[in-house]
């Protein structure tokens, strides 16, 4: 077995026993990177020298691949955008500091949809990432590079970020575990903002135990992010050690099983997953989330609105691309942004500016925030009856490059992950099987209430056990 095939737990065990050092791990990952990245494109950059130096200075640490929107001092942070090409971070995000103090080192920058806007990583302005299970297909997105790196054993584990499904959908497409923590559970200080009422950083790993270890390291109150409450972080790895399906109350939201356009194989795999949970002693309860049908519309108002405000910082003044053609301040803004941003980012900025503009604010943004309350209430009512919910993660397995041409069609690929993001609860994708003909991985989604990560991870681990 090669060291790059290890997960976090196995790597930590080997380091503790002195079987190998961090340098051995990093050298193995560099070999894998050189051998595989040309084909998969999981990484935008991998600074070999820096990774080796970090390993040498931290000989008992586990390397973690980082989505290219999280700041690590001395590393690029392009957000897969031309507007940030050449940028070098002057500081560490809080999640990176947390990694470092918990025995991890950040190695390699993973590709993504530009500014995390997309569901296929095709919106990256800086590189193509291919699905490790079929190079003719996308890895999902926006954390497609992170998912492909995990799925192709090009890392031990990775960090992704999730605004409306950007950890869970690529995890489903690339056969990994992906956890979107509850809103505020993990600090966003130093993480390039997309939609601030939704963004969360989370683990993408080879097992549920690894996700628990990594989440424990990431989570907690941060003075630099005012949305992180002072809620204690449980010791997830030991809290889930005795995970069992027996007696678990699993809600099946009927709206998620009545969707038209769901792939037949995804439906088969999800139904089978439900049956296996029941056979292992789970209690199945049909629940209803009656406002599910509004979630996509709410999301595509709120997320672009917040993005348009957040991306106003890219003005060519303090960092990022500045147009050589600018003559005055106005043309500096207009041209720098026009040259720097890709089409999907421009579309969302325009959409967001529109719904926030005078005369439209109440009808769109204001109204969307109220409908969001109704969506949140659906979840509160469902979680009064069940421990977790089980749903499909994405309506299809990984699709082919250029298969979803129209932006709105691409948006609809996130319909199962967006409602829980809007509700602020935690959710995860766990591998559930492969399609029969195309041999593509498919994940199912577990959802738990806000700050119920222990319950969520327990359900995921129990599921992982019965699928083994």
């Amino acid at each position: 077995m090669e060291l790059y095939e290890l997960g976090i737990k196995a790597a930590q065990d080997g380091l503790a026993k002195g079987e190998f050092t961090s340098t051995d791990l990093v050298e193995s990952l560099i070999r894998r990177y050189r051998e595989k990245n040309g084909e998969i494109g999981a990484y935008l950059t991998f600074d070999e020298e820096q990774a080796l130096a970090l390993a040498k200075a931290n000989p008992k640490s586990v390397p973690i691949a980082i989505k290219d929107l999280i700041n690590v001092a001395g590393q690029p942070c392009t957000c897969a955008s031309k507007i940030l090409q050449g940028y070098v971070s002057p500081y560490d995000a809080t999640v990176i500091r947390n990694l470092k103090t918990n025995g991890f080192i950040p190695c390699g920058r993973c590709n993504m949809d530009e500014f995390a806007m997309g569901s296929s990583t095709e919106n990256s302005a800086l590189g193509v990432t291919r699905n490790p299970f079929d190079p003719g297909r996308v890895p999902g997105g926006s954390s497609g590079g992170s998912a492909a790196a995990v799925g192709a054993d090009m890392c031990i584990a990775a960090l992704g970020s999730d605004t409306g499904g950007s950890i869970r959908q690529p995890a489903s497409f690339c056969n990994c575990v992906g956890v979107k923590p509850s809103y505020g559970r993990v600090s966003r200080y130093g993480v390039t903002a997309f939609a601030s009422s939704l963004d969360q950083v989370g683990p993408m790993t080879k097992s549920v135990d690894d996700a628990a270890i990594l989440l424990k390291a990431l989570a907690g109150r941060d003075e630099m992010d005012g949305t992180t409450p002072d809620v204690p972080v449980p010791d997830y790895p030991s809290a889930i050690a005795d995970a069992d399906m027996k007696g678990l109350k699993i809600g099946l939201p009927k709206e998620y099983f009545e969707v038209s356009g769901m792939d037949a194989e995804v439906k088969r795999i999800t139904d089978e997953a439900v049956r296996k949970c029941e056979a292992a002693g789970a209690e199945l309860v049909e629940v209803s989330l009656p406002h599910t049908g509004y979630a996509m519309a709410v999301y595509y108002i709120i997320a672009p609105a917040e993005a348009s405000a957040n991306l106003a910082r890219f003005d060519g003044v303090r960092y990022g691309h500045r147009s050589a053609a600018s003559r005055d301040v106005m043309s500096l803004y207009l041209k720098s942004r026009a040259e720097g941003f890709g089409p999907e980012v421009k579309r969302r900025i325009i959409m967001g500016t529109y719904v926030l503009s005078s005369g439209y604010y109440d009808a769109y943004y204001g109204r969307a925030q109220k409908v969001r309350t109704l969506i949140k209430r659906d979840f509160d009512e469902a979680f009064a009856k069940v421990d977790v919910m089980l749903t499909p993660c994405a309506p299809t397995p990984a699709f082919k490059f250029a298969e979803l041409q129209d932006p709105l069609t691409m948006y609809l690929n996130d319909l199962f992950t967006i409602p829980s993001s809007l509700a602020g609860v935690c959710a995860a994708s766990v591998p559930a099987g492969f399609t029969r003909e195309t041999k593509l991985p498919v994940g199912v989604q577990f959802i738990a209430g806000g700050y119920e990560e222990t319950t969520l991870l327990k359900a995921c681990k129990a599921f992982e056990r019965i699928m083994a």
Partner: protein
Amino acid sequence: MAGNKIDVAYVANLARLELTPEEQTLFQGQLEDIVKYVEKISEADIAGVAPMMHGRPLVNAFREDVVRPSMDREAALGNAPARVGDEFLLPKIVEGAES
């Protein structure tokens, strides 16, 4: 709000994005579709419903007001597109002033 028509050229200027004629035509059609789709929210009954601003609302999330080290000046200027001495260099902003 049904029937609202987005004027992409106008909104793009508000957002400080210069569009090519091709982008303008492409985005106009695409954004009309998206706007039409999101108008679905007008069907929801929101009477008496309070807006939800955040995934988990927190109030008075203050930290202690203490002086602490800030980013080194050179580090802060390290990614500047253009600089002069310890400052960011920009085109002239004030009308009539010497640039």
